[in-house]
């Protein structure tokens, strides 16, 4: 049995190999290598999940390599196997494997396919390190490396319009969160003397560090989580990130990387539970994001952008669950969302492949020509809306139950977000698959098997994944995470009702206004929703503001410091003319030092007691330099002269510069 810490190693090795150009050896070797690495990772991760499912929540296996220890505080590259990390690793490896298989077909014709798979493998490896990390610095390194992969993969088709700006926006926005988060990590490391997560959480159980350190640290960490998971106010980068290839959208920007923020809080959950005022903040940011994402998803003209806003909204539900105190609800939704959103994205890619774009204007009526994809997408959409697609309560009910326990306003907002989810899910299905085709000469059949296969595989996995918390199976997820299930009658019923209402209204609207991408009642407020209530505008203005400030500072620098330039240079040029006079002083000092060196050599020679050499050296020293008398004077203690000389060397230049500058006209 291979050790669990090899889980991320295989994808990382393949990444290095592919990025160094190993893929050139044989055509087609790159996807094969990548898929093989992920198969091994998945098997190892699943093995770790089985091994840790009997454990009681704490890490039962850990591997550590020292990274940096300074001033007695230690950071390490460390991986640990515990139920949470094993669950997340299995999920990541599983979804990644399916997406890799899909990408082998999707990217088959791309000129730079090897680089694509190299970057995907780097991402998979880094993401697996992130979820297995046992030390905050390990987590942070992986956290930023997945950000780098996201940047490079969004920008993969760098020559297409809009792509470079989208990549820049994604990395910059998330890095604002990351940089703030680093302060939190450093703060916790200072307090605990180590970056080890288990040690820090053990300290939290003992009431250390004090709230004055703990609460700010939690707030700083939260900023990182919000950035990565595209929560308000960092949500703007994710919709633009859809300009990347669809496998990237499915893997990074819906299923795994964007869930890292939720995972971070889950990983450090005892710390957030202890950080009193932060938890309600998490809940409110989550529910506001859920509402904002759901509303914006209603008016998008593009399939992938709709899915992106859906992801933002769903991640908001997860933050709501965490903030309302239910780790289980958040993780259940995380797993389920990863599966059904990857499914929907891969289906979107299949549609894109068939109709040649992701604009809703090209779609409509695809249910007839793409029955397999339609059936799979329907499973995903129903699961997204929050109806039970299997014999278990959907994860959203668990979230609503948590919100119910957290209070009325939060619960009401969550219900509204739930209605929005149903609405946009129904709108999506109507616009893509129902009605009649809006573009001539669109689809001529379903997508190739290489694309359909992974979609269907996910359509089978979604119901299975949703069984994760089924009561009649003994709630395996609840047992695994040692987190209690929340069951409440009222929120469950209301949750189902809102989902049905949302879906029903959405389907009715789709039937009432076939072919209209924006439903007529929404036309008035569509700009407001699409503009994220002004936030989009704000994020357009902010960079311009920074740039304006930077140009102002640069202009300031030019006016304040550069007038010195010509004058200074002029003075210096005059110095050069008079340099001869200075050189005298310089050479004086140099000569003295050289003479002294010679005398030292002489004295060393004298030790050998070879009189001839001695005489020769002495003669050479005095004759050559002719400064014997000066040296003797120095030797007899007139040090002040020497110091004066030394000073003159430095001072002389400046004085002469000024004097000559005044009297010698510049040519």
């Amino acid at each position, binding site marked *: 049995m291979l050790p669990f810490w090899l889980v991320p190693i295989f994808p990382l090795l393949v990444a290095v190999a592919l990025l160094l150009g190993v893929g050139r050896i044989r055509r087609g070797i790159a996807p094969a290598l990548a898929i093989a690495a992920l198969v091994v990772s998945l098997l190892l991760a699943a093995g770790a999940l089985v091994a840790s499912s009997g454990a009681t929540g704490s890490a039962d296996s850990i591997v550590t390599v020292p990274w940096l220890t300074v001033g007695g505080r230690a950071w390490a590259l460390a991986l640990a196997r515990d139920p949470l990390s094993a669950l997340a690793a299995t999920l990541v490896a599983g979804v990644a494997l399916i997406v890799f298989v899909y990408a082998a077909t999707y990217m088959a014709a791309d000129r730079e396919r090897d680089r694509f798979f190299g970057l995907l493998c780097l991402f998979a490896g880094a993401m697996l390190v992130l979820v297995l990390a046992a030390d905050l610095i390990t987590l942070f390194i992986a*956290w930023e490396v997945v950000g780098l992969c996201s940047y490079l993969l969004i920008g993969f088709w760098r020559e297409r319009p809009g792509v470079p700006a989208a990549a820049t926006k994604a990395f910059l926005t998330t890095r604002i969160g990351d940089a703030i988060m680093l302060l939190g990590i450093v703060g916790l490391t200072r307090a605990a003397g180590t970056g080890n997560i288990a040690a820090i959480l053990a300290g939290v159980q003992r009431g250390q560090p004090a709230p004055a350190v703990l609460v700010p640290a939690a707030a700083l960490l939260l900023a990182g989580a919000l950035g990565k998971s595209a929560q308000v106010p960092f949500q703007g980068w994710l919709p633009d990130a859809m300009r990347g290839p669809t496998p990237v959208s499915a893997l990074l920007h819906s299923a795994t990387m964007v869930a890292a923020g939720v995972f971070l809080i889950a990983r450090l959950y005892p710390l957030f539970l202890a950080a009193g005022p932060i938890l309600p903040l998490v809940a409110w940011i989550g529910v506001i994001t859920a509402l904002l994402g759901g509303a914006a998803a209603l008016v998008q003209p593009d399939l992938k952008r709709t899915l992106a806003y859906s992801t933002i909204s769903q991640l908001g539900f997860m933050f709501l669950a965490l903030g309302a105190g239910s780790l289980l609800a958040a993780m259940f939704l995380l797993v389920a969302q990863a599966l059904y959103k990857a499914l929907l994205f891969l289906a979107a890619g299949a549609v894109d492949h068939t109709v040649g774009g992701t604009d809703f204007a090209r779609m409509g009526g695809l249910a007839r020509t793409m029955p397999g994809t339609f059936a799979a997408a329907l499973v995903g959409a129903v699961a997204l809306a929050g109806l039970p697609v299997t014999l278990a309560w959907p994860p959203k009910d668990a979230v609503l139950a948590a919100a119910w326990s957290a209070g009325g306003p939060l619960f009401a907002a969550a219900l509204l977000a739930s209605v929005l989810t149903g609405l946009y899910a129904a709108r999506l299905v109507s616009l893509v698959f129902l009605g009649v085709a809006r573009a001539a000469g669109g689809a001529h059949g379903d997508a190739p098997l290489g694309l359909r296969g992974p979609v269907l595989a996910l359509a089978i996995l979604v119901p299975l994944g949703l069984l994760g918390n089924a009561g009649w199976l003994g709630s395996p997820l609840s047992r695994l995470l040692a987190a209690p299930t929340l069951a409440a009658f009222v929120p469950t019923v209301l949750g189902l009702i809102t989902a049905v209402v949302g879906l029903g209204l959405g389907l009715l609207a789709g039937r009432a206004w076939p072919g209209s991408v924006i439903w007529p009642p929404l036309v008035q407020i569509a700009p407001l929703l699409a503009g994220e209530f002004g936030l989009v505008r704000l994020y357009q203005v902010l960079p311009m503001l920074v740039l304006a400030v930077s140009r102002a500072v640069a202009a300031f620098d030019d006016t304040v410091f*550069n007038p010195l330039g010509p004058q200074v240079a002029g003075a210096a040029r005059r110095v050069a003319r008079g340099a001869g006079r200075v050189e005298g002083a310089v050479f004086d000092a140099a000569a003295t030092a050289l003479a002294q060196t010679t005398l030292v050599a002489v004295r060393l020679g004298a030790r050998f007691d070879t009189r001839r050499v001695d005489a020769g050296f002495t003669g050479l020293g005095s004759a050559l330099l002719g400064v014997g008398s000066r040296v003797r004077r120095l030797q007899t203690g007139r040090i002040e002269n020497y110091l004066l000389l030394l000073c003159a060397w430095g001072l002389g*230049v400046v004085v002469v510069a000024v004097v000559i500058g005044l009297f010698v006209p510049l040519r």
Partner: protein
Amino acid sequence: MPLLTLIIFSPLVGVLVLYLVPRPAAWRGIAVATGGAVLLLSGVAAAGFDWGSGRLQWEERVPWIPALGASYHLGLDGLSLPLILLTALLTGLGLVFSAYEPQRPREFFALLLVMETGLLGVFSTLDLLLFYVFFEVALVPMYFIIGGWGHGRRLAAAMKFFLYTRLGSLAMLLGLLGLYLNTTPRTFDLPLILAARPLPGTDLAATLVLLALFIGFAIKLPIIPFHSWLPDAHTAAPTTGSVILAGLLLKLGGYGFLRIVLPAVPGAFAAWAAPIAALAVVSAIYGSLVALAQTDLKRLVAWTSINHMSYVLLGVAVAAAVGVPADRIAAATGATYQLVAHGLITGALFFLVGMLDTRTGTREIGQLRGLWGALPGYGGLFVFMAFASLGLPALAGFAAEVQIVLGTLGMYPWAAAGMVLAILLTTALFLWTIQRILLGPSTPDAPVLARLTRREWITILPLVGLVLLLGLLPGPWVTLIESALRAAPLGVLGALGTLVGGR
């Protein structure tokens, strides 16, 4: 075996050979071989070095001017060894890069080698008079390199560099003399001075010495408002000159702070630590803001140097302040690490800008577009180094910055926040630069650009490897530096240890 003497003066031997051989075809071989020999010898010094002890090693001491208490005193510790290696590496790579210098190659190689002697001397000497002499030897050749081999307004830039440098050297000299005059018995020997603790307090003499040394080294770093020479010097300097200037000459300032100012005037520095930290933060933000507005790629990289070297001063200021010893150690170690990391990363960035300039004939960002498609290897290298410069984890710059943040956060939380803001601005400026010059479609009428030559790959790959190594496994280097900083009397805490209650 006087290994350090051998290392320091073998570049001069190379210069001698250069001028003895009349055949121009042989010059580049001699220059590169000399650079390689120095690197090899430095490698020998590192291999024979006991990394954990913190002691002075490879020490040499010969009386020089006994009446002045000046001696030819050399030695390496964990603070100087990395800089010796950096000097040997960057000069060697610079010689490889410039091997086919068309204009007066012999003089160019000779100046680079003389500069190398000066730099190696500064980083290994323990005698302040000798320190000053080597400092001058290191700086003067750069004036000729900018003036003789530069572009644009090179004479004006060279003059500006010269004058700032003179002023800095003068201030530094006054500070060193202040130390000398306040030590009894009078000596220029740094370990003896520090052991005697001549200026431990906050009296006028200590403050004046601090002021003089601060101005001297702040000009070299450089810190706002002493920075104005740097962008001009870089814009005018030839590529290798810029690499040495950013990679090594700026390090003289940081090294001076760590080696001399911190342990020599601990009390005065502690009293002024907060304002100096504030100046460093302002300088960092200012540097990145001005860099963001640049339109010349080389000037942009030059301005990021001001930003990155400000972190060094911040680390030094925190190390000087009275506070938790672990914080101060982290800050000082981070500052030292940043010297090396910045040398590698910015050195590489200047090489890359030079490679671009030779192909496109312009450094104007507005005229460069979609280069990644035209030069795939180059695009990858530039992105790698840009991300290293903006502090991506697992690369060298992050390992340095995280230590400085670790040290600063407890002492001056506002400074840590300011540093993070500066890091974000640096992120923005590099992303925007990449977006403008590498991404996007290439111009339709763009000429076909030549792929990187083997010589260029040889120049850049060692830097890539080291940036990765220092980022992935910083542990041993940090231990090396920390052990030196903890050792009395040369180390930071060694001198201050008694003030804060030991290590």
